[in-house]
């Protein structure tokens, strides 16, 4: 009878520890089982020394460590690109982002027609990102955060540069900032080195693709196109944690630095409603930040690569 009560007390204490772990981070079941096995083994051993059951469980939990610290450390080790974002934040960001994807697709279909490829690519990429975010795959957060942060800068510059603010532009900007706020790594260490590298690679890609035609893009068509392709390759390689991703980032950095230097002497043709200085500043800021982001991500990518060719193991984590 007494043994049954002891076993029940041990089970309750272990359940409590497990619940505290789960409350702090989204641990895999196998990881929780492993910790539970440790707790049980340690408790059993302490009880064989004659320690009362309550004291044995308490001592075992103390030696295992604060469940919040243990859970956080586990989450960091298990997530290749950073701690898993909470369900609430991931789904809120997805709920804001999904209508934006649909709106852009509609506008592009209307403007370009159904025979053009571009709206389909946008819709496809956007849908993949929404699904990845809902599933809380760890690469989705740095990818979408990098993209939306860059878009937010452009959208804010647009609001500042254009005197008559279109209400739709305002809504768009607020939506972009909302997604950024939900995905922002508020705490230190939320993103790993690989996650930060991915974020920067996406920023450099978006910086190039945001350069507004026709002025800079025509004058620097070749280096910008190479930079854009290199950034796409770098992003794909980084998700696979492949070493070649670093080379692609370095290539993007070189092309963007060259473009920045060349663009310095160019006078971009600003749209009618946009101030020329602000327009030039925006383009240079995008090129410069893109070059720096690509250079830093090349170093991070090299240091965080898991193999030369990469592996699909991290894609669904």
């Amino acid at each position: 009878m007494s043994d049954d009560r002891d076993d029940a007390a041990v089970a309750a204490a272990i359940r409590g520890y497990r619940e505290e772990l789960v409350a702090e981070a989204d641990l895999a079941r196998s990881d929780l089982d492993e910790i539970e096995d440790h707790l049980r083994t340690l408790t059993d051993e302490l009880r064989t020394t004659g320690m009362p059951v309550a004291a044995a469980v308490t001592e075992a939990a103390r030696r295992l460590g604060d469940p919040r610290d243990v859970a956080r450390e586990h989450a960091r080790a298990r997530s290749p690109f950073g701690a898993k974002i909470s369900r609430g934040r991931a789904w809120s960001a997805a709920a804001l982002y999904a209508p934006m994807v649909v709106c852009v697709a509609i506008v592009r279909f209307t403007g370009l027609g159904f025979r053009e490829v571009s709206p389909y690519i946008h819709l496809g990429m956007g849908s993949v990102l929404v699904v990845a975010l809902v599933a809380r795959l760890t690469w989705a957060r740095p990818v979408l955060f990098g993209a939306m942060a860059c878009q937010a800068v452009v959208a804010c510059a647009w609001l500042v540069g254009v005197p008559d603010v279109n209400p739709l532009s305002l809504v768009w900007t607020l939506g972009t900032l909302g997604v950024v706020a939900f995905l922002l790594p508020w705490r230190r260490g939320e993103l790993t080195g690989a996650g930060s590298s991915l974020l920067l690679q996406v920023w450099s890609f978006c910086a190039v693709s945001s350069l507004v035609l026709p002025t800079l893009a025509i004058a620097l068509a070749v280096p910008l196109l190479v930079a854009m392709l290199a950034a796409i390759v770098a992003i794909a390689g980084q998700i696979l944690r492949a070493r070649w991703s670093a080379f692609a980032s370095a290539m993007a950095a070189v092309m963007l630095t060259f473009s920045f230097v060349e663009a310095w002497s160019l006078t971009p043709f600003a749209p009618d409603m946009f101030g020329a200085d602000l327009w030039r500043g925006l383009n240079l800021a995008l090129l410069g930040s893109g070059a720096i982001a690509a250079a830093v991500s090349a170093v991070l990518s090299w240091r965080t690569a898991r193999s030369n060719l990469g592996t699909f193991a991290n894609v669904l984590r």
Partner: protein
Amino acid sequence: MHRTMRHPKVDRIGKELIAASATALVLGILQRGASYGYAIIQEVRDLSGGELEWSEGMLYPVLHRMEDHGLIESYEERGGDTGRKRKYYRLRPDGRRALAEERRQWDVVHAALTNAWRPA
């Protein structure tokens, strides 16, 4: 419960040194044969004469990182005495190479310290 039971404890060996030596120790222990978390902790304690006190829950993230790096691999097996399913770890070829490199580096550090602390 666990939070209230935490009490200040003076580590025998500094946390930084414990963290720095963790990979080398785990690789060394797994070189002798497959093992599981609790047994690895016990072995570390025995090998250090009780001087190395790991925060036990922190061992698993170390093991998972090493697994992610391809140094070790895990498999599940039912434990003999308890009958519970338990996760075991064993060394991979990359782990053996990493162990050789760890040994070389620790030997360098050890030799440098020995020389530095030799009376003039």
